[in-house]
Every structure is written in structure tokens, then in C-alpha cells.
């Protein structure tokens, strides 16, 4: 039987919302600025605009081979290039949930909610596995 206490929402919900709000705004602003730098040619792209329409209809493996574009974490080395500078905003957007889950982990530990803490830890491990490129390495 559920008790009155069971119907309370997570105490971390508002903090989670605030982190997401600021983080996604930051990600979008970065994306707008870097795309402007890219599109107006202020930052030289790795894959030139002239070649891009030839490449974007190719399958991924062929695109990587012909364009010389990096896979894995290779984009970090190319952040000064117009096209790859856009990855800053994209990486911020794809990292926000990880940041929120770190906070959630400490909140659940503090509340001694063991089962939920385990689920949160598994999710954090999944984020690390997906972003690390260790499980499915891409050579380039």
C-alpha cells in the first residue's frame, strides 16, 4: 500500500530542471555563434563548402574516407575549423544529462536510496561507454 509520502515528487526535480535550462541555453548560443563563424567563412572548414554537396550523399564510411573528416574524438583536435567548431555546442547539449545525473547521484546517496542510486550509476556508465568510443572504436 502506498503511503502519503510516496506521492511526493523527487526533491531533485527542480535543481535538475535548472541545470538543464542553463545548459541547453548555453549549448544553443554556442551553436549559433559557431555556425555563424562557419557559414560566413570566418573560420576555415576542414571539409570545404565546394566539396560538401559531393560528400553528404555518400555512406558514412565513404564520406570519412574521401573527405578526411575525423571520427571518434578526432573532432576535438579540429575545433579551430569552422565545421568542427559547431561540435562545441553539440557536445554541450549531449552532455547536459550527464551533468544532471552526477547531481542526481549525490542527491540519491544523501537520501540513502540505494536502488535508485544503482540505476543512476548504471545510466552514468552507459553515458561514459557511449561517449568514450571504447566499446565500438572507430579508427581514423
Amino acid at each position, binding site marked *: 500500500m502506498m503511503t502519503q509520502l510516496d506521492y511526493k*515528487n523527487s526533491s531533485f526535480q527542480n535543481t535538475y530542471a535548472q541545470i538543464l535550462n542553463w545548459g541547453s541555453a548555453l549549448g544553443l548560443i554556442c551553436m549559433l555563434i559557431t555556425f555563424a563563424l562557419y557559414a560566413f567563412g570566418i573560420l576555415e572548414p576542414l571539409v570545404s563548402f565546394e566539396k560538401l554537396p559531393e560528400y553528404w550523399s555518400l555512406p558514412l564510411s565513404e564520406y570519412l574516407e574521401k573527405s578526411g573528416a*575525423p571520427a571518434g574524438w578526432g573532432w576535438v583536435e579540429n575545433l579551430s575549423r569552422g565545421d568542427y567548431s559547431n561540435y562545441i555546442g553539440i*557536445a554541450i547539449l549531449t552532455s547536459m544529462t550527464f551533468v544532471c545525473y552526477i547531481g542526481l547521484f549525490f542527491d540519491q546517496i544523501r537520501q540513502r*536510496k540505494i536502488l535508485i542510486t544503482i*540505476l543512476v550509476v548504471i545510466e552514468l556508465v552507459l553515458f561514459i561507454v557511449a561517449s568514450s568510443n571504447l566499446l565500438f572504436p572507430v579508427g581514423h
Partner: protein
Amino acid sequence: MRSKFTFLSLLLFLLIPGLVFAGGSDLDMPWWGWGIILFLTTFIIGLFGVLAGIGGGVLFVPLVSSFFPFHIDFVRGAGLLIALGSSLAAAPTLLKKDLASLKLAIPVALIASAFSIVGAMIGLWLSSVNPAFIQGSLGVLILMIVVIMLMAKSSIYPVVKEGDYLAGLLGLSGTYKEGATGKEVRWTVHRTAIGLFCFVLVGVLAGMFGLGAGWANVPILNLLMGAPLKIAVATSSFSLSITDTTAAWVYLNKGAVLPIIVVPSIMGIMAGANIGARILPRVKPTLIRKMVIIVLLLAGVRSILKAFGI
């Protein structure tokens, strides 16, 4: 006024993909021309996605992969980031209003995100074997989504007499305030094990095709598990921010993210969704939903034809 708006909207909604389709992917257009058309198309997708009550990702992947020259690998990567961006934009408000439940999203998103990694890998592998496999399966899936959209019913307040053992163990319950009446609604869920199991499939499909999975999440949470409709819709939208994060990293690591597709699409879809939310009270959602179903049907058929090289 309403009928004029609906007619003009339908015309506009079909015009841009129609023009691109008529031109074909060999259309001699500079890169920025495609960027502008992509922005306009995603603006309309965002607008209609909100009006029809579905996420933009489910419209984006079949339409853009069928009518634009981009390879489906890049379209799926962009589709995931679009679904992620839309979810991140909506989640803070939904969480603050207690409509999206963090407690419910934790186990749901864990299962879906684990299997979205599997789905992303299957999708990229299938595409490397033969892109027609993925294009054809996408077409079939879109037609199935059309059937689900036509058949699925919803229940505003499903009757859940008592949460089951697993729901109690995971604390899957909460409270929210009804906007119109100010009444406090308490909710919990049942059939938790079978409901959570369904998210295995949702995760695989989301990762494999780069689709947001609101079309599947909402019926599972609402009709199967018994969450109130508002909780189901909002938690589904929020949980996409968790599920799509893992799959998006797989596409990012594989190099399947092209900023020229991703950035105009995210900006377009968010601008469209913003305008859509403002005009929502003035349009008939059922009519819009029917139009979206027709467009999905066309995109599904077009995907299958493209898979056969027609």
C-alpha cells in the same frame, strides 16, 4: 478563418518537400541553398509537430531522408540531435510544473538508453551493408506509426487502484496540479514490469532510426502503465533527453554528425515549435493531426520506394 489557415498550412507543408522532390537530389543548388530549405522545412515540421502533438524527429527523418540529397546516416544523426534539442528545450518547464516525473523517467530512460546504443549500432551496421535495408525498414516503421496514430486511444485519468510491487519499490508515483481546476492529482502506475520491458523495443527503434519515440512512449506510459495522460506526454518528452543522449554520442563518435544539416534543423524546428505553441489555441488539432498522418503516410511510402531504387 480556420479553414483558410488549415488549407494554407497544408499547402505550405507539402510545398517545400514537394519542390525538393520535384527537383530531385541532383538539383544544382549551392550548399547554403540546401541549408535555407532545410531550415524552412524543419520550421514547418516543428510547427506541425507541436500542433499535432508529436515530436519533430518522427517527421524529420522520413521526410528529410526521402526528399533531400543527404545520406540517411547523416539524417539519422541529425534526427537524434533534433529530438534531443526539442526535449532539452521543453524539459525544464515540464519538470518545474511536476508534469514530467524524474522518478518515472529514471527506470524508463535507463532501459531505453541502454537499448538505443544497441539500436544505433545495428542501424549503422545495416546501413554499411546496404543503405536500402535501413531506408526500407524506416518506411515500414513509419507506416506502422501511422497505424498506431490512427488506432491509439488515450485515457486522461486511467484507473490505477494500487501501484504494483515494482512501482512501489522504484517509487513510481507523484502529484501534479491540474492547470484548469487547480486540483491536486495523485498518480501511480501498474503493470510496471511489462511496461518497462516495452522500452527495450522503443530504445532499439530510437537508436536505429534516429527517431524521437514519443509515439510509442505515450501509449505505453498512459494505456499500459496507467500514468495520467499529462504525466505520460511530459515524461515521454523529458525521457527523450536521456535516451537520445547515449545514441547521439554513438553517431557523434562514428562521425555521422554534419553541422550543415544539424544546426539549421535544430534552429528551424525550435523556431517552428515556438510559433506552433503560440497558435495552438486557434487551430483544430484533429485536422492538423490528420494532415500529419497523410504526410507521414507519403513519407513512409516514399522511403520504401527509395529503398527499391524507384
